């Protein structure tokens, strides 16, 4: 049973990686298991300067999921390179840096900064954070802006660039094609869906930022549908995510057209979830008559 997958810049021994923002920089989860078993790891978003993020409460629970509005809190790219990247590099797994910014210039600078380490294998371009805008337009919901920021980052780096798409759009295929045209090496999808929860007793939104991003099993059918649609219109590989809890979910993402997957919210409920999925995946593939991960990719498309 082969779990290995080759993606631009990434030789994965298995297709499982923790999703950005749901695993910090790995330190806490390394107390639970040896991170070297992971296919790769995606770091929490990096911006040029350190950011404090949004006021609290920043999270709320929903049916089969959660809302979050962390607001890209991070220590800034320089500190991440100095202290977090070397820690993760000690596990000898590919490191993917998630990058964010408020302006195209900031994205370019953060991407450039990651040129100063040879321990990062790829960039994940977070154009889908609901709180990130330029001129009032979200990069992730306007195909023209998405194309512009992708081009700028591609120019600034020689690392492969995976563009993380927002599901908060009417035409996901249009977005995917726009960033493919701009030179993206792969896609990451999906980020969270904008949502809100109102607290009855106080009559106010629970999350201080008012809106937050919905993640967890609640969004899985949307992720599957979007990957299924996009896969048929682009030729770059897709890292799939959204509500993965079990190895069966991973197979579903592979069938829809993902080549690898990221696991986010599930880590909060079960810190061992990535490890358990990696151990279970061969059995699940076998159960459904696949002899490798590669064989399952896109097989659900009819």
């Amino acid at each position: 049973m082969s779990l290995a997958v080759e993606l631009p810049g990434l030789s994965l021994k298995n297709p499982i990686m923790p999703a950005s923002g749901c695993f910090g920089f790995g330190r806490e989860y390394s107390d639970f298991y040896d991170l070297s078993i992971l296919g790769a790891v995606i770091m929490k978003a990096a911006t040029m300067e350190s950011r404090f993020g949004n006021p609290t409460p920043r999270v709320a629970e929903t049916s089969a999921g959660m809302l979050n509005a962390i607001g890209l809190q991070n220590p800034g790219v320089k500190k991440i390179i100095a202290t977090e990247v070397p820690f993760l590099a000690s596990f000898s797994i590919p490191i993917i840096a998630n990058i964010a910014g408020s302006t195209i210039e900031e994205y370019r600078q953060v991407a450039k900064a990651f040129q100063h380490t040879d321990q990062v294998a790829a960039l994940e371009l977070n154009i889908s954070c609901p709180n990130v805008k330029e001129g009032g337009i979200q990069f992730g919901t306007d195909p023209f802006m998405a194309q512009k920021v992708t081009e700028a980052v591609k120019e600034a780096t020689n690392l492969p660039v995976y563009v993380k798409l927002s599901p908060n759009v009417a035409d996901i295929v249009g977005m995917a094609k726009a960033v493919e045209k701009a030179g993206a090496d792969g896609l990451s999808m999906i980020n969270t869906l904008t949502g809100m929860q109102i607290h009855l007793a106080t009559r106010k939104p629970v999350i201080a930022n008012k809106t937050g991003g919905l993640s967890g099993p609640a969004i899985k059918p949307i992720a599957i549908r979007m990957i299924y649609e996009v896969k048929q219109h682009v030729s770059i590989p897709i890292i799939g995510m959204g509500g993965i809890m079990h190895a069966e979910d991973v197979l579903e993402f592979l069938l829809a057209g993902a080549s690898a997957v990221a696991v986010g919210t599930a880590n909060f409920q079960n810190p061992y979830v990535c490890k358990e999925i990696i151990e279970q995946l061969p059995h699940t593939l076998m159960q459904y008559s696949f002899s490798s991960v590669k064989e399952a990719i896109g097989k659900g498309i009819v």
Partner: protein
Amino acid sequence: MQQLLKIKSKQTVALDTVEMVLENKAVSQIAVPGQFLHLHVDGHMLRRPISIADADPSVHTVTILFKILGEGTRKLSTYQIGDVIDVLGPNGNGFPLVNATKNSVLIVGGGIGVPPLYYLAKKLTESGVTITAVLGFQSKEHVFYEGEFEELGKTIVVTNDGSYGETGFVTNISKEALPSIDEYYSCGPLPMLQAVKERWNNIPGYLSLEERMGCGIGACFACVIPTDDHGGYKKICQDGPVFSAEEVQLK
């Protein structure tokens, strides 16, 4: 660490307030006052943080007390003796007992902030510290653990509506009713902590804070509290939940 804790006993100690004694050797041995357990409740995406109210390594038990507030705690209250709860913990840093050489400590608890202070008060008295407890509750039917605290030191119960004990807020207690104090420890709702911090601003104090949590272990940045106006912060789940009063900004 992830542990399974078996429910050994369960009782309602006040209105909508449940005490559970849980069995787990490892947790009972390492738990320190102020730490919390991050409990998985069936059918819920996120875990619930609940303080450790007592621990007895000699019989491998850990006690929690929780108020039925929403869906998660309601579900938890339906768990039966013998059921097993999946927890992460003990998480966070507890109250600094190193300062226990001080000989007079004030304990100020509000509502469901009282439980962690019980284990703290026990440990402090064991090391020879004199404690005075001021415990605030909404009304008579919410009062719990008054007898348990009285065994440890002078205990003053305050109810907001005056239906039991003193009337008003914990910070209304007059200076004359209290001994001279070297240090205070407090846990309760934010407005109470703000008032406590203000009233006893001339003596060192420690506050246990609450915030909605995601991971509960320091990875997701859900539970931060500012430490200054320049972007400094601490994570309540990892650096706290206990902080020295001057260390954090209570908004």
